[in-house]
């Protein structure tokens, strides 16, 4: 496992997310309304759509294609058509940078 520099803290608006690609995989990094940062796999578990174009509403991320919703803090699938939880990844803020732990 290693901490990977993903983005600056100012690169993501509050209550929003960005896409982060690393090592052939894609991830989503979230800036929650309370100022904390979170990370999950970047593709919806339903039809492999990039979540980065979706809408963050409080603690949930909505898939931009089919309205499937996840709690990005827990990864829990909340609404059909998603049935499989989203994998989370640890995140930390170092200075003004956001790092994601990947293995």
């Amino acid at each position: 496992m290693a901490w990977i520099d993903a983005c600056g803290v100012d690169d993501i608006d509050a209550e929003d997310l960005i896409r982060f690609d690393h090592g052939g995989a894609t991830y989503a990094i979230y800036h929650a309304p309370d100022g904390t940062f979170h990370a999950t796999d970047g593709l919806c578990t339903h039809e492999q759509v990039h979540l980065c174009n979706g809408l963050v509403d409080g603690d949930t991320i909505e898939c931009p294609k089919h309205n499937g919703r996840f709690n990005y803090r827990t990864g829990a699938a909340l609404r059909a058509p998603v049935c499989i939880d989203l994998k989370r990844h640890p995140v930390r803020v170092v200075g003004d940078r956001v790092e994601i732990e990947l293995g």
Partner: protein
Amino acid sequence: MSIFTRIYAPRDYSLTGASRAHAEEIGLASAEWYHSDVPRKEMKALMQRSDGPAIRDTVIWLGLLVLTGIGGCYFWGTWACVPFFFVYGLLYGSACDSRWHEAGHGTAFKTPWMNDVVYQIASFMVMRNPTTWRWSHARHHTNTIIVGLDPEIGFMRPPRIVMAALNFIGIPFIFYDLRTLARHAFVGLNEGEKTYIPESERYKAVFWARLHIAIYVATILLAIGLHSWLPLMLIGGPRIYGCWHMYMTGLIQHGGLAEDVVDHRLNSRTVYMNPVSRWLYWNMNYHVEHHMFPMVPYHALPRLHEAIKHDLPAPNPSIYAAYVEMTRALLRQRKDPTHYARKALPATARPYRDEFHEIEVAREGV
């Protein structure tokens, strides 16, 4: 050649056959789709949900349904009931489709349970199993008009134009829909449906199908008991006599356009319409925009259209114009399975993504 004649073998539109395997083999199933550029802040604003517009429209919709239903019953047996049932049928048999659609996307209301309630009511009205159709529509958006993957392709090639025209009077498709509900209730899902509905959801399809069938049986028994068609004029019947507007607007969504492309500008059609049709249809006339960004609510689609129209082909100026374009293309598709209505893009637009269609054209030529 008459419009009844087929001069080439139908393509395989099944979800378990050779077309599906081919789409997966050439990468069409997993390709990334074209999207017009919209600044992130603007797109977030467009995707914002609100209960207000849909509550207003739903109160008007259901209120008019009750009023016209009462009027139709009051004047039943006289010619005066006709205008009441004309409006009742339109609200029941046509507006149900757009309410089913928007609530199914979860974009009509901000509050999830409101979407769910309207979705269930509208699913019953439009005679669709709410479970199977929720999943089929998700697949339709993932693989729009991809042969072998999209379960909601309206015109299969060679197109059956007379059968499509019969849609306007609900026949024979009401029988097909009822047969499908009965199959779900008493037999189960078919192999094609199992490709897009997870096992954990299938019991719901059986439950809803049985409930819908029970309501229809009760309505028929009531009609027999009363020796009157009136119960069927109110429940189920509008799916025949009131569905014409649903098909008038629905057939032009994708009819005569491209198969096997990853660019909604090539396989979907935006049509300018009168305000009444737009209200009944909840702005789905902006169909390219809807497919490109399906999480934008119906009430924000006109704004989305303004934001990206520089990147889209010119909309058809009317329903009539859309039918002229579609019918010409369908007639030509009777002879040429690779033909589709391809519109010119404005100079401000980025080029079409039609590389997979070109593979299909080359394949047809072999």
